[in-house]
């Protein structure tokens, strides 16, 4: 069975926010809302905040969006099944027409991956650009990344590029101890 995952190379990420901009444009994400954020190690929006002393300065960033968890906490609490895990590819899907704006998902998600309309409360989140996947294209964040830090593919296929990257590099997943099985694999810098 296919299980779509992101693999993000933190050694390549330069915190330029192009992925966030590309995501907004592709998915028509309104101002003040987000599907993807790039954070610095203090969990704040990407800033130039290097550590160390010149010339040994270091800086890393963390692009994060919906982690499309195996056992997604948002899916477990959604009262209307507006959020559900698609069997065929593991993508956590949001049907906005079924969303009642209760924001239980917000309380459950460890990744702050959802944003909400200020009047209706209707949720929004990363769709893995499934409309692009259906056309054989990669997610927009991946397509626009100037340093090719973002990869996506079937993590259950040992021959896939993402599986090879995970096998070859030292990786970790954010909040893995939650047991949710997040499917963004970060390659350590």
């Amino acid at each position, binding site marked *: 069975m296919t299980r779509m995952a992101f693999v993000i190379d933190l050694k390549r990420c330069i915190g330029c926010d192009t992925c966030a901009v590309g995501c907004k444009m592709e998915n028509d994400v309104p101002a003040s809302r987000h599907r993807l954020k790039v954070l610095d190690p203090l969990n704040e929006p990407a800033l130039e905040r290097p550590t160390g002393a010149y010339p040994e300065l270091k800086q890393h960033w963390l692009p994060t969006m919906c982690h499309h968890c195996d056992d997604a906490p948002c899916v477990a609490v959604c*009262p*209307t099944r507006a959020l559900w895990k698609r069997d065929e590819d593991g993508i956590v899907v949001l049907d906005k*027409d079924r969303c009642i704006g209760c924001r239980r998902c917000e309380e459950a998600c460890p990744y702050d991956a959802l944003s909400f309309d200020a009047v209706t*409360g209707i949720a929004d989140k990363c769709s893995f650009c499934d409309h692009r996947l259906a056309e054989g294209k990669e997610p927009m964040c991946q397509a626009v990344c100037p340093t090719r830090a973002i990869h996506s593919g079937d993590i259950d296929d040992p021959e896939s590029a993402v599986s090879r990257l995970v096998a070859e590099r030292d990786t970790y997943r954010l*909040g893995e101890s939650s047991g949710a099985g997040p499917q963004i694999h970060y390659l350590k810098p």
Partner: protein
Amino acid sequence: MTPLGHRDQVVLLGAGQASAQAADQLRRSGFSGPITLVGDEPHPPYQRPPLSKAYLVGAHNPDWLYYRPAQFWAQRAVTLRLGTPVEAIDRAAGVLRAECGSPIPFDRLLIATGGRARPLAVAGANLPGVHRLRTIDDVDGIRSGLDHARDIVIIGGGFIGLETAAMLISSGRQVTVLEAGPRVLGRVAPPEVSSAMAAIHAERGVDIRTSVTVTAIEASSGRLAVITGDAIFPADLVIVGIGITPEDDLAREAGLATDNGVVVDDLACTSDPRIHAAGDCAAVFDPGAQAYRRRETVHNAIEQARAAALAWAGTSQPYRQAPWVWSDQYSHRLQSVGGSEGADRSVLRGDQRRFSLFHFKSEQLIGADTLDRPDDFAAARRLLNGPRGMAVASAIDSGVALSALAPRQPMAKFERPFSA
């Protein structure tokens, strides 16, 4: 309680939100034994809230009514016995006795039978063209009569009545709402909310009559006439939405404790430790009211069922969250959390058209009603379920951001420092 063994048979009686949640939670908790879900309707578990909203006028994908796609139940090895009315819970034998077919044995039973539409006890209440609104079949019946219906009378000004009125007047029909109480939403919302919603409906042309008692419904010349004390309301179609009563007959006849519902504790356990109950049919003790109360909300069905399933799986997580409910009418979203009963002070933020109303009792926040202010609703729920609460002064001071009083759960942090 002894955790479930993998040969124990779990039976979920009722095919609604609570049973669907319990089945899901049991499988998530690792239970691999047999689960049987028994329902008297022919449909797999479906959602009732859309019935009085978009589904009523055919604007809702019918497939979306169902909690899960059909294959879900087979994949999780949940046996569905639908269209199977149960006539008795035989606790001594540990079986359900169905009206037809073999008995259904259980080691653990969840009673999630929900409620039945409260009947209108007047002459003519069963005439053709007079409908209740509780099930898919009820609504399909209404829809089949809508094509030729211009004048519609809705009896009952609660959530169901007003949501139905909003959908039907938006589809070009004349709608009259007859409410027995002095205001709409009188059982579920404070007067300020009732006034706001009544004004919204009046602007759209809904004729709302309060303090009106229906005494009879008559048929004449192919139409209906709803008779009240001093008026007659002609109608092509009548919808009755005057609340529900709990389906607790089976539990009572089986000797379980009942009090306007199946009495349960905060783990959803009945007076028989093998049997739990959840959802609209279950009554839990309310210390504030010193009485057993039912909570007819989706949230309650989900959390009670989850508490029951977790208890069976060996994890006791009492359900003590503030109840919440929502209602969509036109483009407006009304959201309530906690309650306003017993409040000695209410604080309004916003204006008459878009507001939040916070209710306090002895300086403690006990609930909030919000109209088109979902951020306030979310913050109020965090405040009510969290340890900190909110002071009256903070509610009054519109300069105080609720999000600051009730911060969202922090995002998962970097779990180890990056080192190149």
